[in-house]
């Protein structure tokens, strides 16, 4: 063992002792890692869960064939869901609403906020395309009644209609409503509502597990000094910094 590493090791121990933390060497830690049993089938399930929840239908189908993993939901429903999402992302809100109702009419019935946001998006698209009269009519007939029922809806409605007041919409303070990110937000909301209606969790499990890793490492770090994975993209162990 080179002198350099001996010194590093001693410094780590001194630091650990000062904080009364247990020191776990690379060797000891690797042995603990080796003792962990992670089943291939479970990892496959995690990957399938990611593909399915994020909507990679074709990839999920191929993965089913290549790995023999069962997707936990019917892949056909993913196609329908992704069609809705894409419609919203492209600004075809009417089309999206029709598709959602075809899929499950209860979704919009039981989700007034989602329905309002979809209608709001429709209004935004009309304004974007310069159809001022149609926009106003739509706002008054479809959205105003909703606004009366709910204070926050009313505020949103007023904000959206205010877009009409600006000459140069791209530079006005509420211009963000016209940004594609607004479409993405609405699309995400619809996606989540569909997943929930299908009794499926709306988020894939993998990101939560990554966060859990960070959390667990920090928790252990309060009591011990040990090799950590600091870069999720390489997943390599790094010896404790001194």
């Amino acid at each position, binding site marked *: 063992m080179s002198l350099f590493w001996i010194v590093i090791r001693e410094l780590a121990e001194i630091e650990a002792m000062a904080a009364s933390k247990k020191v776990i060497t690379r*060797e000891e*830690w690797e042995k*603990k*890692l080796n003792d*962990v049993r*992670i*089943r*291939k*089938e*479970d*990892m496959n*399930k*995690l*990957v399938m*869960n*990611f*593909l399915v929840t*994020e*909507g*990679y*239908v*074709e*990839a999920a189908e*191929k*993965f089913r*064939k*290549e*790995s*023999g993993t069962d997707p936990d939901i019917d892949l056909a429903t993913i196609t329908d869901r992704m069609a809705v999402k894409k419609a919203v*992302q492209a600004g075809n809100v009417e089309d999206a609403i029709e598709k959602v109702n075809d899929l499950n009419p209860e979704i919009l019935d039981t989700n007034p906020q989602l329905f309002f946001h979809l209608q709001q998006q429709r209004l935004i698209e009309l304004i974007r395309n310069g159809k001022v009269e149609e926009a106003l009519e739509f706002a008054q007939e479809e959205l105003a009644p909703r606004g009366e029922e709910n204070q926050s809806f009313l505020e949103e409605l007023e904000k959206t209609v205010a877009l009409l007041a600006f000459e140069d919409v791209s530079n006005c303070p509420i211009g963000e409503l016209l940004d*594609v*990110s607004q479409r*993405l937000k609405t699309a995400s909301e619809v996606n989540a509502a569909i997943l929930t209606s299908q*009794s*499926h*969790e709306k988020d894939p*499990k*993998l*990101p*939560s*597990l*990554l*966060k*859990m*890793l*960070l*959390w*667990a*490492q920090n*928790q*252990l770090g309060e*009591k*011990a000094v*040990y090799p950590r*994975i600091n870069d*999720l*993209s*390489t*997943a390599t*162990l790094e010896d404790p910094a001194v």
Partner: protein
Amino acid sequence: MEEASLSLSLSTTTNTNTNDLIATYYLQQWRLKSKSSAAKFESMGFPEPQFLTQIDEDEEDDKEELPTELDTLNSSGGFSIVGPDKLSVRYPSVNLHGHDVGVVQANRPAPSKRLVYYFEMYVENAGAKGQVAIGFTTPGFRLRRQPGWESNSYGYHGDNGLLYRGQGKGETFGPVYSTGDTVGGGINYASQELFFTKNGAVVGAVFKDVKGPLFPTVAVHSQHEVVNVNFGKKPFVFDLKAYEAQERAKQNSTIEKLSIPQNASYGIVRSYLQHYGYEDTLKTFDFESRSTLPPISFVQENGFTEDMNTYSLNQRKVLRQLIRSGQIGDAIGKLKEWFPQIVQDGASAICFLLHCQNFIELVRVGKLEEAVLYGRTEFEKFYKLGDYADLVKDCAALLAYELPQKSSVGYLLGDSQREIIADAVNAMVLSTNPSVKDSRECLHSRLDRLLRQLSACFLEKRSLNGDQGEGFHLHRILNSGRKG
């Protein structure tokens, strides 16, 4: 350890040692499966095949003994009479003073390798003075004093609703309880608290100072008092599952607030598909990702890493396909054609794995005679190596049963056995890449390493915490959230 690292560094020219390292790892995986299958078979008799997968799940639950009944070995010397079912206690006489309490502990201390432990007590008869109590005490507790009256013990008393925890005086805590009430005592290892319930509702909690084992304890102290205990054989009045779910949700909301690099998951999934050779999925995944919104701003891995991961991707895909469909002979043929160095040594561990699988495939389709002949030619060379005798025995045992899939070696006929061989071959091919410095890199995908680190951290944290709290249970996490 020194020797192993020396031989690894010399092996750039001859690959035999590193080859064996990889194949040996998978042999060990096989061995673990064999042992656990045999063990569970013994304990469960002859379970139907579908239970064999359940068996793996149970393995994850840390084995701890649970309290099941009241202890009758240590007694309060006549001040408590435990019923024949060992789940009820009554006070036999008239109490005279504070040292004739009838206290009974459970037969075992509360298990600690979990989130929460809980038990309940039903007051059948509060007797003359309703001086019943529920709580936790340490081993060696003086069983003539109410739980809580001595240090290192806790007791929620029915006559005054106070909580005693070794201070002499009780503290205001919860409501009084009497005949017909069900009270419960629990330990929450996450928050390090003891909590008590009455008729299904939590009445209060206190910090748990005692770090060692704690026995669930009940006590009676006046004439005609009778209490019944429930250690879980019957459903609880308190919704324990909901409480546990609540605790987990609290923890999860803290965790969710952490941030991870955008597209971290995307990168890990992609790397996983590359590592194990799922070529078709990878191509489709890449294609579908191009049309997603928001656009994936994925930092392409540097050329070197990308090369490592896509090395022989197509060949690895083909090999996996062949093995997964049981065409071992064809797989060996392809290996001889593409990577002869892997199967050069006929007595190597990887050849052993392949030949065993071939044998298993013959048995699967009922070609028993052919299997026997095959076994006789191939297994002989491995017996000489000695190490693999137990696994050879497992394979040979398949011949002994009319319905081998229902036997203790039935696991060999499952998909997961083929998976082990497929993964072993995959790792071996990855290791033939001249840029690979340490063949151990080929064993685990990034996802695998991350999950191992996660599990190891949980286990170490628990161990440093006096072995209290949950471990990391991937299986449970995968199956949670099923609302249907």
